[in-house]
């Protein structure tokens, strides 16, 4: 089945019509929130997350961005400057979280990092380890300098590593990625990343290779630390476990295998009100490469901006309106509230 057909089918699958012919989300996240007695309003804007583009040197199975070497969407200088301007206006925004694609492939990436650090912001980079070796798939530009650049600017580096062994990692991220990841992590360790007390934070991200929930973050972190140290001499700070979001490439795969319904049921059955209270959209705002604002990176990828009453572009930034917005919840939000919860910072419980 063609991807467009799958997309249409899965969109139809995810909705149903009530007695007044109003189309409702199929799994009704808002009803679960209400029944749990929760009021999930924004609490703060501590983090501005910016997706600088969809270009990536890889095309991973689980990627909710559908990123890859042929994607051309990328932040321009004006948007990058506006992001930095907004950061400068708001001391309460403590963190800039930069993601992609492989965010390092944006021509404005280095500039954004440098400017945000000048403002005293904590900068988190969702670093694609293999880009150190692959470089830019379009221009061929080397990205081998990145570990030193990150260290020089005291960035927190967060890397996806789906497992501490080859099979799962290569299945999700492509052949040869595990070995390259080990080499890239060693290069990060060599400049000081991952050593407790060194001040250079290296966090890894686990997400399931398939339609199942992550294991306990604490137990997996212990396994990762033991295995990576004993077999490769690699150290890191924290492991974040993240649930696969049933959107885009992962959803297409679920639909193709006939497992979408079962996966959604698993997420819905695992709805955890405590995890829901800690969902990341309550303390952050997501900025698209073109400046569009969303409640999170997942909504952004589905072209779902902030609610209509609120300015929807960073060029019309209004912090008060953003803080007082109503967060847009849909079916995939169950991915953030299942079990121990899931966020860009791992489990929320």
């Amino acid at each position, binding site marked *: 089945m063609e991807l467009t057909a799958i997309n249409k089918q899965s969109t139809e699958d995810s909705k149903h019509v009530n007695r007044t012919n109003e189309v409702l989300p199929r799994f009704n996240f808002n009803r679960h929130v209400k029944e749990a007695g929760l009021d999930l309003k924004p609490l703060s804007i501590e983090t501005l997350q910016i997706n600088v583009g969809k270009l990536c040197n890889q095309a991973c199975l689980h990627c909710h961005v559908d990123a890859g070497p042929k994607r051309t969407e990328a932040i321009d200088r004006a948007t990058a400057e506006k992001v930095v301007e907004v950061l400068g206006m708001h001391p309460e925004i403590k963190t800039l979280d930069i993601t992609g694609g492989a965010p390092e492939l944006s021509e404005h990436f280095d500039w954004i990092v440098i400017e945000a650090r000048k403002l005293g912001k904590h900068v988190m980079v969702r670093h694609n380890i293999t880009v150190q070796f692959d470089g830019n798939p379009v221009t061929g530009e080397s990205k081998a300098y990145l570990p030193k650049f990150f260290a020089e600017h005291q960035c927190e580096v967060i890397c996806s590593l789906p*497992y501490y*062994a080859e*099979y*799962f990692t290569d299945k999700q991220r492509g052949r040869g990625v595990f070995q390259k990841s080990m080499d890239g992590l060693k290069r990060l360790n060599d400049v000081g990343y991952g050593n407790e007390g060194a001040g250079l934070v290296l966090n890894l991200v686990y997400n*399931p290779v*398939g339609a*199942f*929930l*992550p*294991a*306990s973050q604490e*137990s*997996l972190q212990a*396994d990762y630390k033991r295995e990576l140290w004993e077999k490769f001499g690699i150290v890191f700070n924290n492991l974040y476990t993240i649930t696969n979001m049933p959107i885009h490439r992962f959803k297409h795969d679920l639909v193709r295998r006939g497992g979408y319904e079962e996966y959604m049921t698993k997420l819905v059955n695992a709805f955890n009100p405590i995890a829901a209270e800690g969902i990341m959209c309550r303390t952050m705002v997501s900025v698209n490469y073109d400046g569009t604002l969303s409640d999170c990176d997942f909504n952004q990828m589905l072209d779902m901006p902030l609610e209509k009453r609120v300015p929807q572009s960073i060029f019309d930034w209004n912090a008060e309106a953003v803080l007082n917005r109503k967060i847009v919840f849909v079916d995939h939000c169950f991915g953030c509230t299942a079990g121990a919860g899931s966020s860009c910072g791992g489990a929320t419980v």
Partner: protein
Amino acid sequence: MSHYYESNDLKRFGQIGKHQKELADKFFDWYGAATNTESALTKREKQLIGLAVAHAIQCPYCIDAFTQSCLETGSDPTQMTEAIHVASAVRGGASLVHGVQFLNSLEKVGA
């Protein structure tokens, strides 16, 4: 009923208490305590044991359930396959060790 084994029947396992709730409750409490807790063995280790036993007793419901629970407690297919080999080796060994009885029988008749 088109098949003796239906995957959806696993979801109905709780209904086994329909005519004898007390015994079912005792079973599920014990089952949960034995397989789904962190204690002297980790939950992950217990799921690997469950997967191995599921293969030894050839229970399709258990294989399905423990495959999921092994993944959701952090095992990968290599580790799970090794667990299945342990079960298979023990099961094979249990057959083969009876060959000693066969040898005894041979000796008994002087063959």
